[in-house]
């Protein structure tokens, strides 16, 4: 694409995101520009639209089509116990402090298809905290929430998940927590007894209150700086004093506006503590 075409695309991209915001109340306007562009080009091909304008028309007319689009916008790639050291640090450093609270609130922001929620639930169970924990699992994409609530994965995925689980300091076998049927597995419902799955947008929705731990991994990377700042502010408001914020391996608050509102708690695993 030459310069003018690039510009044309940028304009149409902005129009599309604006109109999605108006029509569906989903605000993608401050998502990282570059990855958004890639996603849209891909969606154009998939939905058979030669131009963004055509895609826009289609998406605005047809809600089904919009949800199709969301699937590619919200990139549901995840694993259980992804980056095992993150969970190990939670277990060894954060959990002992959480234990001093009579009841605990945990928020998994951008939970996608629920891998992280189940990972945390298992961790809390093993540390005897699950009983007094309320877990909020939120995502902007209602379809992934449905999937997350089911606790359904392919048997094949369990290889990797089990390996991660062991490396994260797991005390039992991952298979203790699920039942296999055919080539898929279902995780025990007891794990999600205290979990509330909720549709929540980090961009437009309000804060939770007095949360002790927020885990929001690999979400901020899709946001522009300004939106990152806004999201971190949201987390700051939601956390109790000395509450913890866990981010993805490539994410940090070091350069955000709110860097000095947090202390690095386990730096290498991107766990921060509200001052």
């Amino acid at each position, binding site marked *: 694409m030459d310069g003018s075409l690039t510009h044309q695309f940028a304009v149409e991209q902005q129009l599309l995101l604006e109109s999605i915001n108006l029509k569906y109340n989903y605000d993608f306007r401050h998502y*990282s520009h*570059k*990855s958004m562009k*890639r*996603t849209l080009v*891909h969606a154009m091909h998939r939905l058979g639209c030669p131009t963004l304008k055509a895609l826009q028309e289609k998406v605005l007319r047809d809600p089904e089509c919009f949800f199709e689009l969301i699937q*590619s916008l919200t*990139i549901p*790639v995840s694993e259980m116990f992804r980056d095992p050291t993150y969970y190990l640090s939670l277990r060894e450093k954060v959990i*002992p*402090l959480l*234990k*001093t*609270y*009579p*009841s605990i609130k945990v928020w998994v922001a951008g939970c996608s298809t629920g891998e992280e929620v189940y990972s945390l639930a298992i961790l809390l169970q093993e540390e005897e905290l699950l009983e*007094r924990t309320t877990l909020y699992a939120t995502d902007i994409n209602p379809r992934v929430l449905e999937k997350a609530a089911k606790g359904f994965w392919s048997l094949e995925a369990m290889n990797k998940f089990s390996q991660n689980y062991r490396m994260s300091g797991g005390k039992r076998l991952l298979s203790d927590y699920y039942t296999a049927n055919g080539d898929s597995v279902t995780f025990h419902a007891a794990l999600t007894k205290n979990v509330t799955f909720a549709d929540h947008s980090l961009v437009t929705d309000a804060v939770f209150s007095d949360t002790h731990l927020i885990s929001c991994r*690999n979400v*901020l*990377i*899709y946001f522009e700086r300004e939106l990152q700042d806004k999201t971190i502010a949201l987390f700051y408001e939601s956390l109790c*004093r*000395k509450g913890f914020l866990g981010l*993805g*391996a*490539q*994410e*940090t608050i*070091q*350069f955000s506006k709110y860097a000095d509102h947090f202390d690095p708690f386990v730096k290498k695993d991107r766990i921060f503590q509200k001052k």
Partner: protein
Amino acid sequence: MIELASFATFSEHQKTFLEHVSENIGIAINTSISRKKQQELLERSQGLTEELQTQQAELKATNDELEAQARALQESQTKLKSQQSELEQTNDQLGEQTQALEEQRDILNENNAALNKAQTLLEERSDEVQRASQYKSEFLANMSHELRTPLNSSLILAKLLADNAGGNLTTEQVQYAHSISSAGNDLLNLINDILDLSKVEAGKLEIRPESVFLPRVLHSLERTFEPLARDKKVKFEIIVDAGLPETISTDRQRVEQILKNLLSNAFKFTDKGQVTLHVSRSSDGKLSLAVIDTGIGVHQAQQEVIFEAFRQADGTTNRKYGGTGLGLSISRDLARLLGGSVGVESTPGEGSRFTLLLPETYDESRVESAAPKAYTSSISVPAPLKQRVERIKPKPFADDRRKLASPGRLLLLIEDETQFSQIIFDLAHELHYKCVVAQDAEEGLELAKSLLPDAIMLDMMLPDHSGLSVLDQLKDDPTNRHIPVHIASAHDYMEKALQMGAIGYVMKPAKREELKAAFIKFEAKLSQKTKRVLIVEDDKLQRESMVKLISGTGIEITAVALASEALESLKQGTFDCMVIDLKLPDMSGEQLLKKMTEREELSSLPPVIVYTGRSLSRDEEDQLRKYSRSIIIKGAKSPERLIDEINLFLHSAEAGHSPERRKMLTAMRSREDAFEGRRILLVDDDARNLFALTAALEQKGAHIEVARNGKEALSKLKEDPRTDLVLMDIMMPEMDGFEATREIRKQKRFAQLPIIAVTAKATKNDQVLCMEAGANDYLAKPIDLHQLFSVIRVWAPRLGRD
């Protein structure tokens, strides 16, 4: 078309028939032909269809395969996408880090520039200091002259009186005159020393080389010191090695001065054994005049110090041996001017060897000047006398007391050492504090009251009173109580001072970082005042460990075991924070909390932290939340959180403030406890003193015993070992305070007995001696009752605490 042949002609009838039939036949034939064609076509089409079906199946298979590939592609694309985003993020971060690094580099450069500037400034400063030192020496030289004149006349008059030429004076009066005369002589010697020193320093001392006949010098020295040696029963011997020249070229007066100095020092510090003057040749060909004694010796660490003006081997020396401490300093300077040197070798307890090395021939060109000689007579013109007198008052530098209106926090420094004051003064300025310096306790307390500084830095050894008593008085006075006090002292009273509410303690000599840390503490404390924490925990071990955990500077802890005691404490005073256990013997924690909210007389409830070992149900938690700000479940990390939460409540502005009045009342009540029923032993030989002090202390409810000297004190203690505190005068007959204190300390059971020394004149040396003897603190005479009470409060053991 059909061709028919017949042998007979066709009848008309037949013809017609044929005509009719022919059409039908044609049709039939046609039909038959087309049917055949159809049949063929059908067969062909069936073949084609089959073929098509096969192809379709093949196509379908290919299609499936393609779809599968597309799915795989899509998945990997999604993954790639997220990876790309992650990479981009990492890239951005790297960029930012680079930028941060660049910024740091810039800052470093700036810092370097600043350092260079500072260095230039320092160099300038150093020049200034040198010049100032020059001025000082000039001034001293002039001053000494002017002092000598009137002193001389009074000396003469005293001499005249002592002679009692008129015969009209009593023996006593004559004795007085002798005293005046001898005191005046001492003063004159001191002035001479100062004069010499300043002359040397000002580069004004002239060397007059002449041919000096050594035996004559030695003989004169022998004559001078022989009587002294006899007097002290110390052997005095002069040994001269063979092969030495009899005549050398030097300034005889100065050489004699140096040797006299070394010899009189030797005699001064030698009580038995001998003093030897050994003349020999040194390895580098110089003439060596060594004064060797078997006296007390000088510690290695002090061997350099003793040559510094106004300093002696240790502070205690002065009192025992007297002297100005200038002699060695002058000797070294003079030796240098003569082209030689003075050195010392010594083993403490065995003796010293002071060696004067002199060149055989004085050579002016080889003498390093002691000080730059740039100061000409143009600046030595005496200034008006009044101004000069002001300059020798103990006001080492101008502090900020005239600049109080300028912005910045105000530090009050209570410190008598000029050097240290200067360091703090400069540091304070650097950190944007104004700094006022008080040179003794009295001035310090006065300034604290009148200026209400933001922070106080306090020395422990002040000329008039001890630092601890100053600290006590500061904390006793509601107007000053909130001011953070940091201690800087060479003596270790850390535990006591911190207990009394000092925010920090730094031992001298202190590193710059340590001093800076003191200021950081000031900053931290300035917004807060003493905080009170109430702990309710029935388990003794737990309670004690919690007290240990929480206690820190500026925090006052009340720890009780029962809920009823907690309520009582809350009635008596207000607290900034309260920590309760849920399981108490007399009522449950929940009940206690409820009671607290019901009681009206508890005007302000402190924030409550529930610290419990059991886990709580949601309901219990909700119930507790009504009263308590924070609930902590005991566990591995709970101490950390407890400290954290307490700190939060203590330092947040919303923490309840107490009505000042009530606080003061409770404070005062506890203060008087320090005297009630206390057994205090007064040791003093002055009846009037005893009378006055007994009256004052008995009024406070103390029980007083008296002793008139050290011996009596010891036997009184033997009679009544329950004594809580001893007030010990130092100057007493029979057994003085030092000895008595030492004797008391020798007994194990009195190792902890507080002993307050009372000294007549509070010089630094006296204080040090008191401490060395084992006193806990000191008071200067005349005794100020305020001081007395506060010192007793400091040292009297707390009731029920130990």
